[in-house]
């Protein structure tokens, strides 16, 4: 599939709520984004920001967790929310696939590598085991597994972490999906291996034209991979922009905090500026801006607006939206004063 501007995935007003003993947890609040074929969208945020849950929800993987999902998710024009679970299951692993943070726990410890991939092929294709094995072997070779014949007969614990993630990637791409959700794919890996895996993902994306949702908290990875970025906080998107904009003209205090906390090797006077406070409880969200309790700039906004009124996700430019009560001028002044983003 060649690169086109065609939208593959369209998420509109997605809500995910969990009923727990402590109350209703609003894990995802009104999330919307589009992903074009062959492109990479990074979803960035702390743990608990809803970035993983939103992706699981659109894959139909939050069923059985007492979850209530509402909104609209169109995959290649097909509405997934509220659809027959069987039709969504048929998409999973075939046209949309997913890889996870910890490849050791994500691969079944009791089954051979080869068999786990063969199973992934056979569940969506009516072919015999031999043919499936041929396909698996080719894929494993493609993702860079040496001695494939031997490895196919091995179990996950016999492989190194990097190899395991290559296997996971191979397994997710085996049916040539149009969408790959990569949930923190390199977090559990050594730094050197991280780079290799990212490189592999990029190569494969080019080769197969796969659209990727990259879920991460690592802005370095974002810079390397993403075309577009959604920053999530407290279950909502707080900023949504092309990758360059996020780094050059981040538009709200939480994003500033994220960028400021990247260790910059070149910076002499490093502003290692972690965001104070804790992530919000998703039970009984405040009526004002979700980030307000940790925001250092809320006093710049008059009338305690940040405490009372939740800001809308509003466009700053054609492709850049953010959720903040600060004015454009206030933001520019702050960025300048604090040396955030590109200095004009």
């Amino acid at each position, binding site marked *: 599939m060649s690169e086109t501007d065609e939208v593959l995935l369209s998420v509109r007003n997605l809500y995910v709520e969990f009923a727990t003993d402590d109350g209703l947890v609003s894990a995802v609040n009104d999330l919307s984004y589009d992903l074009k074929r062959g492109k990479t969208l990074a979803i960035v945020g702390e743990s608990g920001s809803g970035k993983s849950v939103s992706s699981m929800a659109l*894959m139909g993987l939050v069923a059985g967790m007492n979850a209530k999902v509402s909104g609209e998710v169109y995959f290649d024009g097909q509405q997934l929310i509220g659809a027959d679970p069987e039709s969504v299951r048929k998409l999973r692993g075939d046209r949309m696939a997913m890889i996870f943070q910890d490849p050791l726990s994500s691969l079944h410890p009791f089954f051979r590598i080869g068999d786990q991939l063969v199973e992934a092929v056979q*569940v969506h294709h009516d072919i015999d085991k031999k043919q499936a094995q041929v396909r698996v072997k080719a894929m494993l070779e493609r993702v860079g597994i040496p001695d494939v014949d031997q490895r196919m007969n091995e179990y996950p614990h016999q492989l190194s972490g990097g190899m395991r993630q290559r296997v996971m990637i191979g397994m997710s791409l085996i049916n040539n999906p149009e969408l790959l959700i990569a949930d923190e794919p390199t977090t559990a890996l050594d730094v050197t291996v991280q780079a290799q895996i990212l490189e592999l993902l990029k190569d494969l994306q080019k080769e197969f034209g796969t659209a990727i949702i990259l879920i991460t908290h690592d802005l370095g990875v974002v810079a390397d991979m993403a075309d577009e970025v959604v920053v999530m906080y407290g279950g909502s998107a707080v900023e949504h922009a092309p990758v360059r904009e996020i780094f050059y003209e981040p538009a709200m205090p939480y994003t500033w905090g994220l960028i400021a906390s990247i260790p910059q090797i070149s910076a002499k006077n490093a502003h290692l500026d972690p965001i104070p406070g804790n992530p919000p409880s998703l039970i009984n969200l405040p009526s004002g801006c979700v980030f307000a309790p940790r925001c250092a700039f809320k006093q710049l906004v008059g009338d305690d607006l940040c405490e009372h009124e939740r800001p809308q996700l509003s466009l700053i430019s054609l492709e850049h939206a953010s959720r903040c009560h600060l004015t454009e001028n206030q933001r520019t002044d702050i960025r300048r004063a604090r040396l955030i983003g590109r200095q004009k």
Partner: protein
Amino acid sequence: MLMVFMLTILSIVTFLLFNAVPTDPARLTCGKTCSPATIEANRIRLGLDQPLITQYLEWIKGIFAGRTYGSGTATFNCDAPCLGYSFRNGEQVTDMIVTSLPVTIYLALGAFVLWMVGGISTGIYAARKKGKWQDRAIMGVTLVGYSLPVFFIGILMLIFVVVRWNILPYPSYVGPNVDTLQFLQTMILPWISLAILYAAYYTRLTRSQMLDTMSEDYIRTARAKGLPEKIVLRKHALRAGLTPIVTSAGLDLAGLLGGAVITEYIFGLPGLGRLAIGAVTEYDLPTITATTLVAATFVIVANIVVDLLYAAIDPRVRLQ
């Protein structure tokens, strides 16, 4: 090798346990007006006058090579594997075990199949319906089943199914090759009574194992692959939760093979459990020793089999 070692230790412990008791086994071989000389004669005849170590070696020798009891014209042979001679029954212990063991094996295996199939499938069902009324109903029923003593279930079944409703004839054990129908009619209630007890436990065990493994990452992976829920449960989740089930199953089966005393008694099954309990009430030392050894051997063998099964189930165990 380990097994041989364990069995040796076991045989010594079993032998000492029952032969070093503060009761004179020779005294028990004759009736109330027994003279000391008679006791002495029987002591010699049974080799009980020998030191314990000699008695033990003689006993072990009997198991492998057979032995001869008594002296003069009153001798008799006990062929290998000779587990001793039961003075109270006037029979060789090996013969008694050989006749009673198959009964216990039929009983244990039949019940085992019933409870494993019933318990595991119900457990999976309950796990799938977690929190719904089906799950709650199953959990309630199993709690009751689990807390009912086996003799209660057995007697209840006998009195209702057999005595009141005449659904089955009175239990009367025959070998399956003698009269298959009667065998099945006799065994079905003991199978069910034993199975109810164990199935209740295995339902709960399977359910909790399933729920534990359902939150594992590889189950999420299996779902992400697009596997139907049935396969996710039965292949991926069950396989991962199988280890504790196999452990319990192996040991429970071994325990039953050593004799299901109460069930055998209630249903009049001439199995190992009845043999053992009869031996205990009559203080028939050779039989007590032998039945204990057989039962303990089952447990040791079961442990080894369970270990082998672990390796078959979990490749991580195999390679370490």
